């Protein structure tokens, strides 16, 4: 289980390849990459800056992975989240989860992203033609967690098919 918080970019193939080769027992590897969009709510974004809370960020990401491991049989998981200045089309975050079967990999990957969105201390500041402003948190991110509360009783229930 690895958590990296860094300004540098990452290479998906390199990271996925390392996970794959380290876990011959894992038949599934789900990867999610979050990317800076050039439009947010209809307004053109020229630059984005991400701030985070060093120390708490790593601790919260590790806790989220720990929560996922308690729900699904995860061979390995990796979260890389960037901070600092980013531009549209830049990669922001990578979540990669290796499991024996695909159902668990898909579910755990989405679970980690949904929790990261509401619990990991990162803040986005966008620069548009109107100046720089902090991005507001979205209700949809909080609502995304509700499905995990509902499915808490049956982790991996549909993953063996």
């Amino acid at each position: 289980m690895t958590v990296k918080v860094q300004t540098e970019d990452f290479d998906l193939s390199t990271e996925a390849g390392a996970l794959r080769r380290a876990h011959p027992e894992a038949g599934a590897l789900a990867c999610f990459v979050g990317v800076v969009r050039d439009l947010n709510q209809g307004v053109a974004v020229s630059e984005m800056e991400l701030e985070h809370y060093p120390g708490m960020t790593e601790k919260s990401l590790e806790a989220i992975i720990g929560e996922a491991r308690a729900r699904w049989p995860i061979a390995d998981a990796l979260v890389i989240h960037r901070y600092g200045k980013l531009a549209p089309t830049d990669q922001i975050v990578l979540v990669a989860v290796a499991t024996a079967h695909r159902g668990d990999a898909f579910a755990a990957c989405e679970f980690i992203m949904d929790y990261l969105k509401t619990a990991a201390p990162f803040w986005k500041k966008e620069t548009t033609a109107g100046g720089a402003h902090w991005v507001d948190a979205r209700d949809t991110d909080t609502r995304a967690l509700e499905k995990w509360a509902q499915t808490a009783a049956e982790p991996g229930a549909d993953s063996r098919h």
Partner: protein
Amino acid sequence: MKIQLRFFAGVREALGVADEAVQLPDSVVTVGDVRSWLRARGGDWAETLAEGRSLRMACNHEMTGPGTRLTEGCEVAFFPPVTGG
């Protein structure tokens, strides 16, 4: 009690402070008490930390509610709802 304060993102900018070490009066024993105590500084502090403002709090790097009790030397942080990912 002595504690360390941290402020992030919009809260940090509104207050003009990123971190501060403070000596608390004996009456301040919870994270919520710290918020009220800082509000009493008035001005940007009263406005930014007002009840009803969407604000998250952490104690020793864990998200927490106002009822969490402080410990000597703990780190208390105030910040807006997170927007990473």
